[in-house]
């Protein structure tokens, strides 16, 4: 052990990556930024050749309706990743939102009580995350991983070992059913919900002061703290918002499926993470954004739908998803590396060693 101990002795990180980081290149369009939209176009073309049905309006809206919940979860995650963290417990927030609202409807409460109850339960999950990460300073990945563990148990305990809750359709108040199954100007309510939340979050991140502060707290935590931002409050707010959005997705799920099935939320987690980081490739700075996330979500949706239409069994779907995810991210990294040496954008984010050097210096400044 003694040899290892000497290795962890103080070593000053070289200033190289930090200097490189400040030299951002503007102007020329990086090829890597076209990877995600290019893949989307490619998937559309391939499947439209293979199956004539995919381009019908009905099918396209069907796809959007299917991915609406994933879009909501992924947008919540976008906020957290923008704030420099990660949230593996979005499935728990989603499930608890669905559980609470389905339960309240089942017990005969009004629609708004059920929605508020669902959002509050999800907010509690976010509060636990924020407490663990901001106050106890547990790394976000591990803190939210244990919330995932504990949350799964909580669901089983609340439902007597994992019994689903089914709502009989006539007893569900119209005000609740419309959230998931209604139509607004002929468009599926789930799509309307996802689009409106996306718009709100996109504006929040894009044009408000809060959005800029959050981005700064995520990308340069020590600089943000030194310049007087309350980074703890900002990061906590990202986890709370993420949980509430995921909880809203849960309420939509409960209204859409007329019930609640334990553990259904965690299925969205992996796709949401994939979509968020596919989205990061379209930004010059490797920043995650609502627009990019939605592109990632639609890629996954089209892929699933297209594979179904050409009749491949669902066993192959994860394979296709995994390969597409891997190839998009690899293409972005490789193209970006060839283009410009200074690691900016997605490359600073995705490239491990440089980014690690940066975060190490940033982490050290925190007392």
């Amino acid at each position, binding site marked *: *052990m003694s*040899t*290892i101990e000497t*290795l*962890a002795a*103080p*070593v*000053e*990180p*070289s*200033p*190289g*990556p930090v200097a490189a980081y400040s030299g951002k290149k503007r102007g020329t369009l990086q090829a890597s930024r076209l990877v995600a939209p290019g893949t989307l176009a490619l998937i559309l073309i391939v499947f439209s050749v293979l199956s004539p049905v995919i381009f019908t309006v009905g099918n396209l809206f069907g796809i959007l309706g299917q991915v609406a919940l994933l879009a909501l979860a992924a947008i919540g995650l976008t906020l957290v990743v923008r704030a420099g*963290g*990660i949230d593996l417990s979005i499935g728990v927030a989603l499930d608890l939102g669905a559980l609470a609202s389905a339960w309240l409807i089942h017990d005969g409460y009004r629609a708004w009580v059920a929605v508020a109850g669902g959002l509050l339960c999800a907010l509690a999950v976010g509060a636990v995350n924020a407490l*663990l990460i901001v106050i*106890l*300073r*547990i*790394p976000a*990945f*591990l*803190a939210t*991983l*244990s919330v*995932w*563990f*504990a949350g799964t*148990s909580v669901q*089983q*305990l609340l439902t007597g*070992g994992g019994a689903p809750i089914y709502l009989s359709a006539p007893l569900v108040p119209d005000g609740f059913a419309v959230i998931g199954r209604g139509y607004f100007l002929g468009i599926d309510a789930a799509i309307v919900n996802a689009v409106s939340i996306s718009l709100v979050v996109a504006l929040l991140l894009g044009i408000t002061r809060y959005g800029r502060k959050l981005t700064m707290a995520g990308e340069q935590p020590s600089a943000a703290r030194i310049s007087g931002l309350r980074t703890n409050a900002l990061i906590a707010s990202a986890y709370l918002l993420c949980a509430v959005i995921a909880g809203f997705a849960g309420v939509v799920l409960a209204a859409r499926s007329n019930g609640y099935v334990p553990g259904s939320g965690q299925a969205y987690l*992996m796709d949401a*993470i994939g979509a968020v*980081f596919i989205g990061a490739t379209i930004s010059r700075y490797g920043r995650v954004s609502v627009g990019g996330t939605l592109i990632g979500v639609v890629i996954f949706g089209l892929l699933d739908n297209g594979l179904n239409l050409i009749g491949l069994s669902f*066993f*192959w*779907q*994860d*394979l296709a998803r*995994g*390969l597409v*995810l*891997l190839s998009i*991210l*690899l293409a972005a*990294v490789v193209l970006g*590396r060839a283009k410009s040496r200074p690691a900016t954008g997605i*490359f600073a984010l*995705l490239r*491990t*060693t440089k980014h*690690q*050097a940066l*975060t*190490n*210096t940033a*982490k*050290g*400044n925190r007392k």
Partner: protein
Amino acid sequence: MSATLVPVDEAPAPGASRTKPRLAAWIGYAGITAVLLLFAFGSPFFLTASNIATILTQASVFGIAGVGLAIVIIAGGDDVLNGGIDLSTGAVAGLAGTVTALAAAAGTPGMVAVLYGVLVATAIGVVNGLSVTLGLRPLLATLATMGVAASLELVFSQNLKIAVTGGFFEAARGSVLFGIPLVAWLMALIGAAVWWVYGKTSWGVNSYAVGQNPTAAQVAGLDPRRYRLASYVLSSALAGLAGTLLVARLSAAVPGIGTQILLDIILVAYMSMIFSRRRLVSVVGTVLAAVFVAALDNGLTLLGVASQWVGAAKGLLILLVLASVTLRGRKNR
């Protein structure tokens, strides 16, 4: 960001921790002993030889796969978002188990079937390692290969349980050497070998260096990519071996089991931090943590605790471990 402001990578002062271990360093051991004593007093069966053999058998799967993950964390750094993590380990174990069971069902001799499983696992490890050395975040690269491995498992097994029969698997399940199951010996052997490589050889020391401070290691002339590539290949190979052991224990390859064991493998690898005075992930600690987690599962069941609570207990456990680790880190700074 002047050079004077740039401090150490959270390293505690080496001298202090070497001479006298702080009280906090023993909290981990004390907590574990307390839990085990509770079980021993709570149930008369907990300390019987057959129960201990059961615990060790259960621990071996997580222990072997956990050692692989520990290697990845050692060579990649324990910052999960940017450092080393292998999310595909559970799915790879499942895939290897399925391949082994299919090969055995097709009449391949047991040893060769296991070899096939481990080879497929290693192939996925090579994909992981190459993606990471190309510059992809390990979290994302292994997330993608996790989907690929889980899907391949479904494709191969058609989502059906594949039973394995034959002397080889029964021997792997049932053999006992000096009162301890064969698989536990295997776990101890792998643990000892990896501990020797990563604790005593220059390869291991360099791996720690690359993980703790890649910039410094690069300046010192090490190429982090070599060590990282090797760590992912090793991790997947060990996960594959663990998967075949799981098949031998269950007498069947059960589809979808990979995602279930992933969380336990991660728990075991990170729990090893409490066995290390310097809150590093360690190989020996991983094996001890695997035994403890298996004992926890077993003990809670013997005490009659409902299975729903076991997950909550594990979640709480990770939190306690991490909280103690963070507190210790703060004190040392």
